[in-house]
């Protein structure tokens, strides 16, 4: 599904605060599998996720999505690809404040120009699947942490992505909510979606659900 070939990422290149966050990683994310990235803080998990999810361009090396080199696509197409292929769940749920849960879910589809009514019913359906239909009209800041995360999950699903990318999805959740999240991931897997997560949390990478676990250290893939 996604192949990385000797990818590096350097922040602030050429300046005094230059950071080499990824220093030559080659890996393959297999379709319909759950892949977990683990490693100590600062090892480059989030950075690698942004590269795989086409949120950022590698400084060197090549990222291939379904065989197509995406590293040098124009931004417009990169965004298009991101929209069609990936659903993102961020560490902070990153909902937009002052906007209703429903509209938050609809936002990723705005650039596609679907009719508003169809979009709204699709978003409502997704919220209902996650048991949140009664929260649809609430603005983001009035949701509880768990609810906010499920709204964020619904938002990640609105464009029907093949790949779900989640950065530390359980960092702010208690045990019960973590369990609930793992159930949702299991459902994704059964629906044939590819899931990619980073986590500090042993409950995630030790879960039977995880097909592949990749360990990062200091911007490189380390032996597990």
């Amino acid at each position, binding site marked *: 599904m996604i192949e990385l070939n000797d990818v590096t990422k350097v922040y602030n290149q050429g300046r005094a605060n230059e950071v080499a966050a990824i220093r030559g990683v080659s890996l393959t994310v297999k379709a319909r599998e759950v892949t977990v990235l683990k490693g100590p803080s600062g090892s480059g998990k989030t950075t690698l996720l942004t590269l795989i999810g086409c949120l950022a361009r590698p*400084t060197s090396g090549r990222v291939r999505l379904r065989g197509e080199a995406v590293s040098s696509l124009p931004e417009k197409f990169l965004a298009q690809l991101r929209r069609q292929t990936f659903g993102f769940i961020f560490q902070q749920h990153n909902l937009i404040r002052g906007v209703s849960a429903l509209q938050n879910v609809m936002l990723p589809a705005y650039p596609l120009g679907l009719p508003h009514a169809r979009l709204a019913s699709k978003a409502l359906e997704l919220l209902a699947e996650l048991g949140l239909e009664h929260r649809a009209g609430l603005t983001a800041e009035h949701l509880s942490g768990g609810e906010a995360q499920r709204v964020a999950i619904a938002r990640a699903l609105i464009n029907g992505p093949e790949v779900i990318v989640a950065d530390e999805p359980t960092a702010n959740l208690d045990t019960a909510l973590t369990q609930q999240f793992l159930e949702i991931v299991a459902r994704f897997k059964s629906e044939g979606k590819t899931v990619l997560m980073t986590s500090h949390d042993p409950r995630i990478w030790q879960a039977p659900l995880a097909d592949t676990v990749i360990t990062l250290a200091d911007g490189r893939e380390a032996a597990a």
Partner: protein
Amino acid sequence: MIFHPPILALTLVSLLSAAAAVWASIFAVELLRRWDLSSGAESQVLLERRTYLVSAVMALVMTAELASLVLFVFNADRMAVMFVGAMCAVGTLNASVYGLPALLAKLAVFFAASLWLAVNYADSQGRDYPLIRVKYRLLLAVAPLVVLAAGLQLAYFLDLKADTITSCCSKLFAPGKPGLSGELTGLGERTALVLLFTGLGCLLAAGAAALRWPRSAALYGAGSAAFFVIAIAAVISAISLYVYEHPNHHCPFCLLKREYGYFGFALYTPLFAGTALGLPAGFLGLLRQPPSLGAVMPALLRRLTLGSMACFSVFGAFAAWAIWASKLILFA
């Protein structure tokens, strides 16, 4: 200089556009020197980001230039009371030697900007910025035009003085008068109409050919530019007579007035739109077709050509209607 609000507004817009054009061409030079899509370096990312700004700026310039073209003509019409002998926009334009050149330059800017935006659109459809170099070279050609138009307009406004004695449409567009305007009128009504309608026929045929064989789109583009000139000449020498129902009133501007039901808008809108769509069809057809636009380009050429043909046909229909509905009979 006459301190007239529309003059100040027009000057403001043209100076802003010129500044934008100068900035964009400096950027264009930088881009042409340093563009390297395969690089992931930050400088390349910055370059790519700036292309978004250039597109937005050019879209704004184009909108402003189109609106200012209309304002320019209407203001000229309104200011006619200030000049001895002026009855409409022609008199005001004639009150300074820079008047007509300024108008022509503004027209050129409008068409050039629409051409650039079309190329920009085509470029944005390809996955490897296929036309980026063409686009920025074109920008380097468009920018001086924008500056020139702003300069001519400024010179014109500075040169305008109340009480200037000028001549208006009745004198300027008289057959036999030397110069371009005389030539245009001197065509003779019959010749002009024959040229207009056979020209339209040929152009539509060229359009049909371009639809069959996209490579011949260049011909259509050249044709639409030529047709624009023929059409303006025909409006001045023949169509306007029918609209004014007067055998000697040749004027391309009075048509836009309320007295004549704003009929000029019905004529000029499709004519301008047709040309603005036809030119890029020709230009894009002329280019070596980039592989990344494989399926997109023929479809785009088709849409541009069809849209342009439709506009020209509407123009032809209005022109024919003006002749048919007029009480003036020039040919028995």
